[in-house]
């Protein structure tokens, strides 16, 4: 901890990040148990085929025992155990007199004692996810809360009820929940629990039971306007990294869009090209079969190309864009941390002044230091986790992109391979008759 150590408060800096228990957290008792403190890393790191980290099998019933078995076989990055599985699927449209909206089925399977039942399945709409996120941010301001897909879509430009849009959103919501479930602190948040289990979420919302931790209370009261003296190197480095990373993601997004555009135009031309061989075949004799097969080949390749382009649009771009949102969230958390540090430094200065004036030492300076040091610890832990997740996510994303391209070429290769013997046949016949 690089912040000033004017008073000798017990700092949490001596222990390793993972072992730090949250001094101001209301969930202390839970965190003291080492097993549950280190919660699951998403299954995304496993070599499952989906581009966005959704585990392939989301519907297999996980009885407690089989869950335990799976846990023992798991071999993930930080040696963390999985005891909470969530998924979002099965979008359905609801039409009422007032409005039309989509709900998603949220399934939970867990062995945690914070949950009354081992399994839950209920329906939630985007609003509910949005509520959850806000509550998480409020109640855990020192932690990075994963982003949600964009709330607002331009009506008339995007069809909110189209299959592609709904599916893209579902995947993002699924990712969001999984990231929360994997987080060692966020996953134990009361609001998260309620979201996953409450039959009637709306009445709960109305009750306004916002269970804030002591930390969130105090961070909420941090007023802005304090100027930061010097940002500790590690946090400055984080900000620099995020800036450059945002830039690069933006560039990649533009390149991907350009590729999609070029591929679409290529596709259009192929759709003109293929049929020409057919029309040629129509007035040929000997050449009819070969020409027809070339036509079919080109058509197959065009179909394969369309599949590739659709995959890029539906799977690649949204994940890329969601990371930009993630970066924004991270930057906001860094900003908050800056403010907390700034306040602490300001109060520290004030003490020095007051000491000279022989007025009593206010106790809230200690609180400030505490606050700052906890924030720093939480942030560092979350940063590490975020970096790891980012690495996995991008490894999966880019590997998936490469795989889709391989599949495209394999489909085309198969198509062209089949007509080679067709074209050769006549030549063999020629040799025979001569």
């Amino acid at each position, binding site marked *: 901890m690089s912040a000033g150590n004017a008073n000798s408060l017990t700092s949490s800096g001596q222990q390793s990040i993972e072992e730090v228990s949250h001094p101001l957290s209301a969930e202390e008792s839970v965190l003291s148990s080492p097993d549950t403190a280190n919660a699951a890393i998403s299954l995304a790191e496993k070599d499952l085929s989906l581009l966005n980290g959704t585990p392939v099998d989301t519907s297999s019933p996980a009885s407690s025992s089989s869950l335990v078995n799976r846990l023992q076989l798991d071999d993930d990055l930080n040696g963390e155990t999985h005891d909470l599985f969530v998924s979002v699927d099965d979008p359905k449209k609801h039409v009422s007199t007032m409005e039309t909206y989509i709900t998603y089925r949220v399934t939970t399977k867990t062995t945690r004692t914070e949950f009354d039942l081992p399994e839950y399945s209920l329906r939630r709409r985007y609003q509910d996810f949005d509520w959850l996120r806000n509550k998480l941010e409020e109640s855990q301001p020192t932690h990075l809360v994963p982003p949600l897909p964009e709330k607002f879509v331009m009506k008339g430009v995007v069809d909110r009820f189209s299959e592609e849009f709904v599916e893209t959103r579902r995947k993002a919501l699924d990712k969001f929940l999984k990231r929360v479930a994997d987080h060692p602190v966020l996953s134990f948040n009361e609001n998260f629990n309620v979201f996953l289990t409450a039959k009637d979420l709306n009445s709960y919302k109305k009750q306004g039971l916002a269970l804030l931790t002591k930390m969130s209370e105090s961070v909420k009261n941090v007023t802005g306007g304090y100027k930061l003296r010097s940002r500790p190197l590690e946090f400055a480095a984080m900000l620099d990294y995020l800036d450059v990373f945002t830039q*690069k993601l933006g560039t990649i997004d533009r390149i991907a869009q350009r590729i999609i555009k070029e591929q679409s*135009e290529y596709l259009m*031309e192929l759709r003109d*090209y293929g049929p020409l061989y057919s029309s040629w075949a129509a007035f040929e004799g000997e050449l009819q079969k070969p020409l027809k097969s070339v036509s079919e080949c080109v058509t197959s390749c065009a179909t394969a190309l369309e599949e590739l382009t659709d995959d890029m649009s539906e799977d690649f771009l949204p994940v890329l864009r969601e990371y930009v949102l993630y970066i924004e969230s991270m930057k906001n958390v860094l900003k908050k941390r800056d403010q907390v540090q700034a306040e602490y430094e300001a109060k520290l200065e004030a003490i020095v002044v007051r000491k000279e004036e022989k007025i009593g030492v206010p106790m809230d300076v200690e609180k400030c230091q505490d606050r700052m040091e906890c924030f720093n610890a939480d942030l560092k832990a979350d940063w590490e986790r975020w970096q790891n997740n980012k690495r996995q996510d991008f490894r999966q994303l*880019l590997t998936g992109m490469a795989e889709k391209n391989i599949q495209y070429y394999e489909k*085309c290769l198969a198509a062209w391979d089949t007509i080679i013997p067709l074209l050769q046949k006549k030549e063999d016949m020629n040799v025979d008759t001569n």
Partner: protein
Amino acid sequence: MQSWCSGSSLAEFLQFQPNPQSLLYDYLQIKGAALHVQPIPANAAYSASTDVQCMAEGSCLLRKMEISVAEAEKRTGKNAVNMQETYTVYLIETSVTEGHNPVPDSLWRRYSEFELLRNYLLVTYPFIVIPPLPEKRAEFVWHKLSADNMDPDFVERRRIGLENFLLRVASHPVLSSDKIFFLFLTENGWKEAVFETGFLAKSDSRLKALNATFRVKNPDKRFSELKHYSDELQSVTSQLLRVRARVADRLYGVYKVHGNYGRVFSEWSAIEKEMGDGLQSAGHHMDAYAASVDDILEEEEHYADQLKEYLFYAEAVKAVCRKHELLQYELETASQDLASKKQQQEELAAGTVRTFSFKGMTSKLFGQETPEQREAKLKVLEEQIKEGEVTVTEKTLECEEFVKNAWKDIERFKEQKDHDLREALMSYAVMQISMCKKGIQVWTNAKECFSKM
């Protein structure tokens, strides 16, 4: 596969030689069945059907002589209107393979000289589908290709096309023994010889041909169908070439944009720790991917050239059809003339006027003619009818000969076309397969790099 040099058709074969006593005849040795097929020079990008043509015994110039268009060079000089111009000349190399000492020879020719040769062949052998020249100006270009005639890639493709033209002529059972062709290959002063043949005067006017097309009554059904086929072939190949050029353009765009990944991955890898290496190497593969499209599309140009050859061949087929229509029309006209003259003779002899004639009307109006006048008229008509009968006989024979010979060559052409286009499609498929395999390779490499991130 018909052989032009089997005994029975030799007479016809000789009949159509402009000068059977030519030097060339020394080179023609009508051998037995042993066939030594001339290997096609390595830089002929076209199909090997010229090989197949050479199966005819001994009539093929290609069997006696190696021909190639080896190089192209830029020249500058003064043209007909005394203006400086830059043009390209092509080096024709020939090497007589008979005997122990191959005698190599070479000379330079412009594209316009090739055109002159072809025009001569068109006029001299109207019943033959004359092989086409490569295009005069670059057409069906996609954006990377230059439409400039001086562009080295265009010149190179033209060189290959010209060589292919010469090989096609040299392996044709009829055309290969043409003296002027031989002179074109070997003699600098060939132009005098070609003009001496007076071929320009023999050429049919376009107007005459057009007139015949519209007014012929009974063209041979096969030729009508053939003309229709040629029209369709022209239409579809030109459409194909146009769309293929657009497809090439788009494909180029797709590949090249991927090159941008190379740069951004490199920049991104600079701020990463563990991910850096994987990203960096993946970026290199993206660069390689983007670069690979140049070779791919260059190969595809050869396919386009093969299609173009047949686009132009279609025109050559139409020329043969037009000649048939012309001959047929002339025959019909001559027959009609004869028929009406005979009619007149009949009427004059019988004294009745069944057909309307001005003379008839005036004599009705102004009185009958004298017996002496009638005698004189009859005599004239008799002469005319005699001439007319000769003309009709000649024209009929000419038509029949033309149809017979033309159809022979058309059958040969059809087989050649089927063979060549089948091969072209095959090589196109092979190109596509190669492109797919390269794609799989690159992306597999990239995937490996990504998985190590």
